[in-house]
């Protein structure tokens, strides 16, 4: 399994609905594969142990997914999103950038044309969980930044994660916060490097990272009360 796929699965924890739907689809696909695999296993005996482990793992995942499914009803949109991420088709497909707000979810992007591999869109209160997953998966934080979508009256906060492995996998976690009351929890406790990045984003966009112990200007003068990267900023 590629690191992109692994990471995507890890990130699915954030989106129980998607996870459930996908799990169903995958279970169906794998039920077929199982029959084939069993035949192959008979042919090659040494593969058997491996397969057992795989099966056990899959069962565990399925149990998780089913419990998630019971609690939350999957809606149609998510189903669609999940279908787009069909493991078979994911590599070829290029996700067109949507204008304006997007539904929560995970989109795989083409590295060659985008420079990123996984694009996660989540709620503001999920970024800490996302950071935790990334930290566990051995990722490091590349940058935090904002984008001022003044027309939509929203601020986008972007977290870039990358890892040191030989295989490339850059994860973007995005979320929207309101432009008037921009607040988002800090991920500093998970990723110490976020300290300065969050301060910088606060400088430029005025986004308050709640729980940050030292949210004072880092690049701007210490008494700065303006946020220069907001589109309506006039010097």
């Amino acid at each position: 399994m590629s690191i992109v796929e692994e990471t995507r699965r890890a990130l699915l924890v954030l989106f129980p609905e998607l996870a459930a739907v996908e799990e169903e689809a995958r279970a169906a696909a794998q039920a077929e594969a199982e029959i084939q695999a069993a035949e192959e296993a008979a042919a090659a005996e040494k593969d058997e142990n491996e397969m057992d482990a795989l099966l056990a793992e899959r069962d565990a995942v399925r149990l998780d997914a089913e419990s998630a499914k019971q609690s939350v009803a999957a809606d149609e949109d998510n189903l669609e999103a999940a279908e787009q991420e069909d493991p078979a088709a994911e590599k070829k497909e290029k996700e067109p950038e949507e204008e304006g707000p997007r539904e929560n979810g995970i989109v795989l992007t083409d590295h060659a044309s985008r420079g990123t591999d996984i694009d996660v869109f989540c709620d503001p209160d999920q970024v800490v969980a996302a950071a935790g997953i990334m930290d566990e998966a051995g990722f490091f934080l590349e940058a935090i930044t904002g984008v001022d979508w003044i027309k939509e009256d929203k601020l986008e906060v972007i977290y870039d994660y990358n890892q040191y492995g030989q295989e490339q996998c850059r994860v973007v976690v995005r979320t929207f916060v309101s432009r008037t009351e921009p607040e988002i929890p800090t991920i500093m406790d998970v990723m110490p490097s976020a300290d300065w990045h969050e301060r910088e984003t606060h400088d430029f966009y005025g986004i308050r990272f709640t729980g940050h112990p030292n949210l004072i200007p880092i690049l701007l003068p210490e008494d700065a009360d303006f946020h220069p990267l907001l589109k309506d900023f006039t010097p």
Partner: protein
Amino acid sequence: MSVPVQCRHDETFVLNLGPQHPATHGVLRVKLTMDGEYIVKAEPVLGYIHRMHEKMAEDGNFAQFMPNTARMDYLHALAYNHGYCLAVERAAGIEVPERAEYIRVITVEMNRLTSHLLWWAAFLLDLGGFSPLLYAFDDREQILDLLERITGSRLTYCYFRFGGVYNDIDDEFIAGTYAFIKRLRSRLPRLYHDLVTGNIILIKRLKGIGMLSKEQARRYGCTGPVARGSGINYDVRKNEPYSVYPEFDFDVPVYNECDSMARYMVRMDEIEQSMRIIEQALDKLPDGPVRAKVPKILKPAAGDYWASVETARGNLGHRLVCDGKKNPYKLKLRSPTFSNLSCFGEVAEGMLLADALAFMGSLDLVIPEIDR
């Protein structure tokens, strides 16, 4: 290693290291809480040379930001050129002719050599050795002369264009580069390694000083030689190949000692590797145009794009958010030293002042790049 600090709160004092201090190489300020010569708490204070390049990018069109890129990391300006070009080319879908890619690699690697040589010089200056500075400058001047020949400037280059480079290289440049590499090859072991690397004082000052563990390096997002000195085999040129780097045979030096000496050795080895890359690129240099036909005003499709390059200091990222207009909607610069420096506070705690400065020197800081 260092003696454990006894924190007697009544006897600490605050020492402002900088913003004007010879060892901070610019205008970095570090607020140190000291107990005698031991550092109890170190707090870097940034922003003294902050110029808001990201805002400037939003104001002009794509090409107009090009000269700004060189003003951030003035020691490895061509890598900044390259990073920005990659981001815009990725957004606008521009193909770069092969010869241009080779020239880009050659010039970027030569620029990397100048950066490492200057770092070496300044690092030794931090440690109180003055002479190496001039030896390194001697070599560095030669590269600058060569680069000046084709780019027109010596420090803040604006040589790359979307879809290629500004100017083709000529035979004299190629011959001069070969000659320079030959010269540096002969000087490196004798002048650099025998005189400095093997020096007992240098070894004593760097071995075991400034331990940055692998896990710490990851959690602080360190990249470049700082990460490679902590045993992380990560180099954007290998891990996320761009341009024509996959066509060259070069190694990524990795040291597992995690101390300042490891970071020193990584950079010294990188000088070697850069020379290898330049040689191979010159050998393989294809013919052809050096610039693709690109419209004067670019209007890339809406969306956001990321491009990373490996500068002398680590992973430089450009995040370009486009909205279909002729100027970038947003440009985020991920500067490597910003992240590399963020570990300073944690690592410097409990160190001696002199050791902390040695550690700071081994991080290879370029302040305008941190402050942007």
